[in-house]
């Protein structure tokens, strides 16, 4: 045998990753995951029959991991455009700390385990809904719609709105009216939230070729859509009170925050030039987070406090 037969190709040497556990955690999009857990908790507590605390905790953990798996699969598919946008350039794949295949494997394993765990711990309706949520976020939103249409986040919003229904199904094995209302709140909240961000980051999205509404229909049309959705959101946000499954305190919070959000959307609609317009969009984006957090926090606190206050 000649020496030549021992020649080793560099590409055949296994690649040893340098990713730290923190990089894998970043793949899970912890901030999105915390919002998912929070909204799923509200769905769980509003279910007709709240579960045993351990079962509830295990269910929320499975839902959180399922949400994280969606984030990892999103970063696997979007690594090319993440590298082009300043907001996402430091994510583990574009930064070179993780290979795309590693993110894909990580996401698929977590997705499978989270669905299986939720099925075994809670029930198979909740597991099927979680699997559908992951499928919708990864395949329908990330792979199909995100690069195709400016309505990407409107339709894709379904994935973000489903966790309260998954939580409700995990708790009771069925879907209540309350879970549909929580779905509607998040679904209508999503467009003004992301379009406010898109107004601020339109250059980023344009560079990456993502057809967000400001890049396709223009900022003025986006401002009109933001206003329309924000006005629609105010009464929908108050529905839990109007339908009788939240207290008057929630009603006051929801109506107050809804009016404030609509007012900020009006400012975004009116102010169209310069720093004033940028600042209005930023204020709306930040307040939209506070809006959703306040509503769901009130619901969660009300339910947790109900054994003491009736």
């Amino acid at each position, binding site marked *: 045998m000649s020496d030549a037969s*021992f020649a080793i190709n560099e590409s055949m*040497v296994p690649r*040893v*990753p*340098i*990713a*730290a556990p923190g990089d894998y955690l970043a793949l899970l999009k912890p901030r999105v995951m915390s919002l998912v857990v929070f909204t799923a908790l509200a769905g769980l507590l509003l279910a007709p029959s709240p579960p045993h605390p351990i079962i509830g905790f295990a269910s929320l953990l499975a839902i959180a991991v399922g949400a994280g798996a969606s984030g990892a699969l999103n970063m696997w598919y979007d690594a090319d455009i993440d590298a082009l946008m300043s907001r996402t350039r430091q994510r583990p794949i574009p930064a070179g700390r993780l290979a795309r295949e590693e993110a894909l494997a990580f996401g698929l394993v977590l997705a499978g385990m989270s669905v299986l765990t939720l099925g075994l711990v809670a029930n198979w309706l909740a597991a099927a809904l979680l699997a559908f949520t992951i499928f919708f976020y990864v395949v329908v939103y990330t792979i199909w719609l995100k690069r195709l249409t400016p309505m990407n986040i409107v339709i894709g919003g379904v994935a973000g709105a489903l966790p309260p229904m998954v939580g409700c199904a995990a708790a009771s094995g069925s879907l209540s009216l309350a879970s549909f209302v929580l779905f509607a709140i998040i679904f209508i909240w999503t467009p003004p939230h992301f379009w406010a961000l898109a107004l601020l980051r339109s250059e980023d999205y344009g560079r990456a070729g993502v057809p967000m509404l400001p890049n396709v229909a223009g900022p003025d049309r986006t401002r009109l859509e933001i206003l329309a959705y924000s006005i629609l959101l105010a009464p929908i946000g108050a529905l839990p009170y109007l339908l009788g499954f939240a207290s008057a305190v929630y009603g006051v919070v929801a109506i107050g925050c809804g009016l404030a959000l609509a007012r900020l959307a009006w400012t975004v609609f009116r102010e169209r030039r310069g720093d004033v317009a940028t600042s209005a969009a930023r204020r709306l984006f930040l307040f939209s987070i506070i809006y959703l957090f306040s509503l769901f926090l009130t619901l969660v606190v009300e339910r947790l406090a109900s054994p003491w206050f009736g």
Partner: protein
Amino acid sequence: MMAAQTPKGTNEKKGIVLTPEQARSRRARNIAIGLAVALFIALFYLVTIVKLGGGVARLPA
């Protein structure tokens, strides 16, 4: 054997030689996986106890 036949990061006798950074990150990943598996086992243990309820201590006749 010619030196050029040994790709960067490998050694003829030892195989792949990790850089200190690679070794450090692998150790951290192993610890994280170990903790995750331990938590997973503890979770399923607790869930099993809750699901079985009082029947956990009942022996079959």
